[in-house]
């Protein structure tokens, strides 16, 4: 099932909205986390409606609006949201007050907004969209689940336009807790140098939404032709999964013009993915993206946005890989991994 990307909106730690520039002067961060470059939300949401919204909800709404604007689709036929952790800020506020106030006199608003479906349902409420509305929250398969759902729906009704996106936020508490697992690299002064060391990664966040349809059109950005997810594979299983995936999609290893790798900078997590890139794609350039957005459950949504933009522009920014030298860019294989347990493959084609 091929689905076509009609519009995209991406709020990320890079300047990924508001201009046509594609990462020509990427932003570098010091420390162990990369936070989003955010727009002025007042231009997306009116004051009466914005007052209860946490950052993750506002990022979701604004990036969804950007995608719909680019696609010229004012009302989607369905909204599919992916989030690994959901609305962490509100969850943390309610939990903290519950503990602090000993279960008394608790404000309902953070509880209401703590549920994972708040982002998708707020988009529906603002648009008055009564169509299909779904929220996936399966760690680093969340975005892949959302794309698959879009494919299923669009194979039933190809003319529909669906809004699908992935979003996760960093909060003070979530960063503090996740840091204690020792997964983030300390004492870095340049996030763009992520791959120059071998231990730990950077905490990231972002919101990328896509307008998708089952019918091709003149202004398509790119198409998503196949996707799959693989949980805790051995190296042999992952290699086989990549081979099967490409052959089912009717693409040979050499047809892939660029591999976009979801390596995270941590040698332990990246072991399989680096080996796959080295063993299978001996002559294919391999690019990376997590030095731009950091690591988070739906980082593959950033990767998908980047792949689609590169296919449309027929250009690979130097920060993604300096290896790429100007051939025609037809097929990009996005191979993502998340802490060495969740792997996904997404094949995108130029339109």
């Amino acid at each position, binding site marked *: 099932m091929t689905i076509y990307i009609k519009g995209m909106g991406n709020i990320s730690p890079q300047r990924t909205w508001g201009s046509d520039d594609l990462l020509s002067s990427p932003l570098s961060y010091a420390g162990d986390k990369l936070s989003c470059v955010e727009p002025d939300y007042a231009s997306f949401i009116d004051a009466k409606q914005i007052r209860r919204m946490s950052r993750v909800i506002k990022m979701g709404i604004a990036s969804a609006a950007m995608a719909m604007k680019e696609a010229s689709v004012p009302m989607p036929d369905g909204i599919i949201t992916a989030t690994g952790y959901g609305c962490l800020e509100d969850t943390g506020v309610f939990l903290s007050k519950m503990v602090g106030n000993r279960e008394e006199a608790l*404000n*309902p608003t953070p509880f209401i907004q703590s549920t994972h479906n708040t982002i998708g349902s707020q988009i529906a409420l603002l648009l008055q969209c009564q169509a299909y509305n779904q929220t996936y929250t399966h760690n680093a398969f969340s975005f892949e689940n959302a794309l698959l759902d879009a494919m299923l729906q669009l194979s039933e009704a190809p003319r529909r336009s669906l809004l699908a996106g992935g979003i996760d936020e960093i909060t003070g508490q979530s960063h503090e807790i996740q840091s204690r697992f020792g997964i983030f690299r300390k004492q870095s002064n340049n996030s763009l140098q992520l791959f120059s060391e071998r231990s730990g990664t950077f905490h990231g966040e972002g919101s990328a939404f896509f307008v998708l349809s089952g019918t091709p059109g003149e202004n398509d950005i790119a198409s998503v032709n196949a996707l799959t997810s693989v949980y805790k594979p051995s190296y042999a299983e992952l290699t086989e999964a990549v081979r099967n995936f490409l052959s089912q999609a009717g693409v040979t290893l050499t047809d892939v013009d660029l591999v976009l790798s979801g390596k995270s900078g941590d040698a332990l997590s990246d072991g399989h993915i680096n080996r796959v890139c080295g063993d299978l794609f001996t002559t294919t350039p391999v690019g990376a993206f997590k030095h731009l957005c950091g690591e988070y459950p739906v980082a593959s949504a950033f990767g998908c946005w980047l792949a689609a933009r590169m296919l449309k522009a027929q250009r690979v920014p130097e920060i993604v890989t300096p290896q790429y030298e100007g051939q025609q860019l037809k097929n990009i294989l996005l191979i993502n991994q998340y802490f060495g347990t969740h792997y996904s493959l997404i094949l995108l084609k130029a339109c």
Partner: protein
Amino acid sequence: MEQLMGNLKRQIIEALNLKHLKPEDIGDDQPLFVEGLGLDSIDALELIVLLQQHYSIKIENPQEGPKIFRSVKTIAEYITAHKPA
């Protein structure tokens, strides 16, 4: 009463995050819900928490909300009548 209503307006703006309003924008008799300030059922619950936190008044039945929270003045009257000694 005047002072109580002034405090209430500030507390309401803070609790409901009505950043676009100043206390003087809210009339004493102005309806708070729907046609007035446009508050909704979630705000009514927040106001119940506000009364509990700031005035130690507990409203057990949310159905009483619309009557008590009609305007800043009705809330002030309710507080005056029900404030614990």
